[in-house]
């Protein structure tokens, strides 16, 4: 993949945005920090990008945490978000499924285009957005009062699926996808809180998968897990790429290198560099990125 460099060291992205018919160009071109694969044809690019964020800014009260993020996330790929602690990774992915705005005092400006539609437009029901974009959190958070089965079936039940056979099938499929089935298949009735930490996290992945979202956001899904459990989850994530668009926040560079197709590097609420994972790790364009991945960060 070739990359064209601009004067300021960043690759142009205006073109891609112009093609999105319903996007305000002036807003998008203000920063011009969008990176995109300029070799691909325009139509391919349009079809290939699942999520496009345009000048996405997020605040907690008066504190600005994201300072205008322009990022395009490819369909059916794994995108890793990296960066030092507190740089806004969690905030960023929480903006993608409209979870950020639920925090008291928090607000979002800018746009997040999902399949050509701005999820922040007033017409859009956030419930629907979250239905399409599943999430796995940093700490496992199964519903303790529900059984393993009910945890996985919870999302489907919300959507009115009552058919027992359908539920059974979905639960089994999701648990298998999350590599948890073999460990829990004999006791699906036990409480979700009675599993080990790693099992709980895989349960949460299964829970997110059961509703068949189109995008899955994962916030450091392995941060509290041992290497075996991490390996299992990575295996699961890799499998999922076939059908899902995955955005994963991670502190673990080996993990990013192992699973991600694309990597974005955040620093102090800004997107510093974004590109092919190999390129980011082997040939970073930005000095900050380089210092971060070589561990020389201050």
């Amino acid at each position, binding site marked *: 993949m070739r990359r064209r460099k601009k004067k300021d060291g960043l690759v142009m992205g205006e073109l891609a945005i112009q093609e999105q018919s319903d996007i305000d160009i002036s807003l998008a071109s203000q920063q011009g920090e969008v990176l995109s694969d300029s070799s691909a044809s325009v139509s391919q690019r349009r079809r290939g990008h699942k999520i496009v964020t345009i000048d996405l800014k997020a605040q907690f009260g008066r504190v600005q945490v994201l300072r205008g993020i322009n990022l395009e996330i490819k369909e059916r790929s794994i995108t890793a978000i990296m960066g030092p602690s507190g740089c806004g990774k969690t905030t960023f992915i929480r903006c993608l499924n409209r979870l950020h705005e639920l925090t008291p005092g928090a607000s979002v400006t800018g746009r997040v285009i999902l399949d050509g539609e701005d999820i922040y437009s007033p017409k859009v029901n956030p*419930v629907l957005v979250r239905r*399409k974009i599943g999430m796995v*959190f940093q700490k496992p958070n199964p519903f303790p009062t529900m059984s393993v089965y009910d945890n996985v079936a919870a999302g489907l039940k919300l959507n009115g699926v009552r058919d027992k056979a359908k539920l059974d099938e979905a639960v089994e499929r999701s648990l298998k996808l999350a590599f948890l089935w073999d460990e829990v298949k004999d006791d699906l009735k036990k409480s979700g809180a009675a599993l080990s930490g790693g099992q709980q996290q895989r349960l949460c992945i299964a829970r997110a998968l059961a509703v068949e979202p189109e995008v899955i956001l994962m916030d450091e899904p392995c941060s509290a897990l041992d290497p075996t459990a991490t390996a299992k989850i990575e295996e699961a994530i890799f499998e999922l790429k076939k059908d899902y668009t995955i955005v994963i926040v991670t502190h673990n560079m080996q993990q990013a290198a192992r699973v991600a197709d694309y990597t974005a590097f955040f620093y102090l609420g800004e997107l510093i560099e974004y590109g092919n994972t190999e390129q980011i790790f082997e040939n970073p364009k930005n000095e900050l990125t380089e210092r971060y991945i070589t561990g020389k960060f201050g």
Partner: protein
Amino acid sequence: MKAFSKARLTKTEVRTWNASANADSLMKVLVAVAAFTVIAILTAIAFELYLNSLPSISKFGISFIWGTTWDVSTEMFGALPFIFGTFVTSLLALLIGLPISLGVAIFLSEKVKSRRMVTRSIGTLVELLAAVPSVIYGLWGLFFLSPLLRRYVETPLHDYLGFVPLFAGTPFGLDFFTAGVLLAIMIIPTVSAISRDVLNAVPNSQREAMYSLGATHWEVIWKAVLPYARSGIFGATILGLARAVGETMAVTMVIGNEPKITASLFSGGYTLAAVIANQFTEATGQLYISSLIEIGLVLFFMALAINTFARLLIWKMKRGMNIRV
């Protein structure tokens, strides 16, 4: 005192150490006595009640509990009408008060978290309900609530649903129903304050997990928050029940004070606490007084049982939450 820490001190230091250690143990004894006093009071209450209800206990035995007659002239005393009245009014209070309290708690913890001013002023308003003395509830119930309910609730219910035993009889306004409604208002601050604390203790990750599955606000509350908080809310309910069972003045003023066991909510009734308040000062004769004291003993055990149960629940829930959070 640990020996090794003493060993490293100089002589004068040891002297002051000993002096302060003496002061320490003296103060420990004093505060321990204070703590013991609390136990002593509770025990003494149980003992005194038992002692003074002995005449009644030896006369009526255990049948006092289910005796339905309360007749001063023949000195026949049975507590069932009062137990029944306490039960009916408390149940009614919970039926009406619990949904309202839960609504208030949900509003305070789930609804407008970001609008701090609104939450705070509503919270204060509901807390002030707890500051109203019960005799003022009684006064208001007697002159305002009772006529209001009779006119706009009891009479229409009787007119249209009079064939249901619950709504039979002529509504007078001073009855089980009014007492139940008044008690419902009185337990709202207790139940809603504890429930709000319990809901606030539910980790946000539970809400977010449900949201991220595509749940509506209501589904998040109903399927994630309330189940997580259920034992705590149950505890809050039981404490509300304790308050309703023990309430005296407000109930006495609106319940009509007739020892009756009937299916009709529009009939006058009596509760355990009310009969003591009403008849004690006029009671003559040892058996009469000791029967009233035995009513107090029944009330004591009811309160003790309810409180123990509620504490256990809340304690269990807190422990459970500590493990998970």
